[in-house]
């Protein structure tokens, strides 16, 4: 087993690291204080080729694969997790259309999503719940000519800024996926959510009110949407969340480590004190194990394993990294004593981000259920 990144992956890692430090780093202070959606950075994601990194070249991607995707997201999350969360939503419709789309749909949407010209979202979760996608109440009625959609979706990341949205609705045949373009009559963005974390990325409600969807916007096979949705959420939603949680933990660990080395108590850095070393060691352990699980998960994706085959690996990686991120953040807050939750160190923001990664792509309970089947 070769655990080394290859030459290309290392070059990619260095490039993303430099990008994140030079172009996102200077914005962190402002983004935490007064969060806003930085469209310029999103454009850079597209320009540099991050968004479509796993998409074949013929559709505007780079075909570098899923491990490359994970490394990219991890490096961005190391500097600022909320901006990495962009990929968690944007790459969902990308994957869905890539795996289930017709040639026309792929050529229409994929290149623009890859370049960042289009922003995408995926609307699955409903007010009644997201863990059971099949219990969707949004209906799609066929009137002989077109689909008429009625329903509500909740907690849809990026819907507010999306140019294209993949969504699920129930037809007579069962759960089905569709594509809706921004500005379509009857498709409206509802109120914005006010989560404590990941604030730079807008999350909102979406409503369908007699929304007309043309037949060419049916994605995949009618009634076969559940499998496609679970596959997409697994392959992208959960893997991205794992990579973000990993990068976030590394970010917070670095802050805690630096603090421990500089903070003097009893005449020497607190780093020399056993309990502090122990706390840092626990964080290290979470990060290293999380990294191995996350990279292995992506590596298996690149080996061609389907999301269904990888369901357990993905669930374990997401569970360990996301639950681990909460622990890393709260331990770091303890370590920093009175400075723990101050704005200056940003750890409290990262803790909020970590909590909001738990429901992303499926809660920890769902991960546990998936792991043991």
């Amino acid at each position, binding site marked *: 087993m070769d655990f080394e990144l290859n*030459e*290309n992956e*290392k*070059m*990619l890692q*260095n*490039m993303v690291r*430099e*990008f994140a430090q030079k172009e996102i780093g200077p914005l962190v202070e402002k983004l935490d204080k007064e969060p806003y959606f930085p469209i310029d950075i999103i454009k850079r994601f597209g*320009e*540099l*080729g*991050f968004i479509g*990194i796993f998409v074949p070249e013929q559709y505007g991607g*780079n*075909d*570098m694969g899923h491990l*490359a995707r994970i490394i*990219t997201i991890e490096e961005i999350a190391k500097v600022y997790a909320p901006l990495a969360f962009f990929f968690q939503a944007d790459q969902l419709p990308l994957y869905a259309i890539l795996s289930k789309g017709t040639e026309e749909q792929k050529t229409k949407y994929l290149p623009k999503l890859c370049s960042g010209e289009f922003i995408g979202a995926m609307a699955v979760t409903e007010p009644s719940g997201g863990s059971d996608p099949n219990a969707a109440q949004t209906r799609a009625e066929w009137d002989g000519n077109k689909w008429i959609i009625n329903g509500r979706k909740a907690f849809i990341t990026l819907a507010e800024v999306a140019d294209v949205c993949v969504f699920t609705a129930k037809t007579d045949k069962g759960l089905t996926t569709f594509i809706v373009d921004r500005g379509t009559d009857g498709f409206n963005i509802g109120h914005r959510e006010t989560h404590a974390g990941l604030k730079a990325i807008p999350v909102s409600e979406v409503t369908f009110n007699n929304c007309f969807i043309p037949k060419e916007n049916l994605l995949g096979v009618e009634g076969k949407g559940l499998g496609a949705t679970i596959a997409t959420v697994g392959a992208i939603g959960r893997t991205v969340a794992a990579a973000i949680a990993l990068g976030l933990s590394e970010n917070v660990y670095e802050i805690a480590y630096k603090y421990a080395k500089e903070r003097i108590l009893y005449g020497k850095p607190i780093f020399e004190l056993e309990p502090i070393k122990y706390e840092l060691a626990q964080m290290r352990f979470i990060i290293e194990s999380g990294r191995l699980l996350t990279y292995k998960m992506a590596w298996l994706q690149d080996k061609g394993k389907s999301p269904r085959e990888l369901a357990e690996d993905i669930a374990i990686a997401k569970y360990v990294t996301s639950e681990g991120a909460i622990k890393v953040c709260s331990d770091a807050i303890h370590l920093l004593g009175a400075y723990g939750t101050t704005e200056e160190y940003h750890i409290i923001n990262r803790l909020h981000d970590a909590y909001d990664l738990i429901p992303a792509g499926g809660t920890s309970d769902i991960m546990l259920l998936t792991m043991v089947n």
Partner: protein
Amino acid sequence: MNIIVLVKQIPDSEYFSKLQLDPVKHSLIREGIPAVINPADKCAIELAISLKKHHSFKVIAVSMGPEATKNSLKEAIAMGCDEAILITGKEFAGADTLATSYALSQAIIKIHSYSMVIAGNVALDGSTGQTPIQVGEFLDIPSITNINSLSYHKVDNTADISRIFRGVEQHMKVVEMPFLVTVSQNFNKPHLPSVMDIIKASKKDIVTWGIRDINADKNQCGIKGSPTETISTTIYKNEREKVVIIGADKDAVKIFVDNIKKWLIV
């Protein structure tokens, strides 16, 4: 028409303050310190690429170093260089600037046809800034250091160059190719290669040349060809007092003023 860019791989300067010496060999421990392209050399690459875009030059990156230097040359290709050549071999190890300049100029002579040589003005590790001028001397081509601007005119194959020299802004015209220029790390903002650039670069091979390939005299290369030698290296320990006060209250002001008075007398 070729442009040659000289590239040096150095330890990442972020780690300079963490350098350690091997207690036995007294040499620098480089393990664990990432290696990067010298920042001014990146600006040289960026200038060459912009000339390539406007005037269809072919850009060849040249470096001398151990096998690991290939990573930096790959990066140079990802930034847009068409080819990259690594001069490598045990005969080149331990070279000072004279021996380095000799080897680089031999390689350039082998490339034979080129309009310009562009280099960074100084490498952050050695900080001598001598190599480019010496390469220019060995090649017997005019050299202009620390330029501010360069514009090439395809119509008559000339270049307009400006620089600030001794407080004077000089405007020059190069009327005969080839020539050599150096740029500082503030000359321009090197662009980040995209994922696509990285993938394309991975498919290109780095050419390696040994001492025979460049017809170099082994007595002028490496340690043998280096008139200067290092006899000892020590880590610089700064002895600053590092007394830090937090806050802008009137105590801070008093300490500030008292110290100025005290230190002025000494």
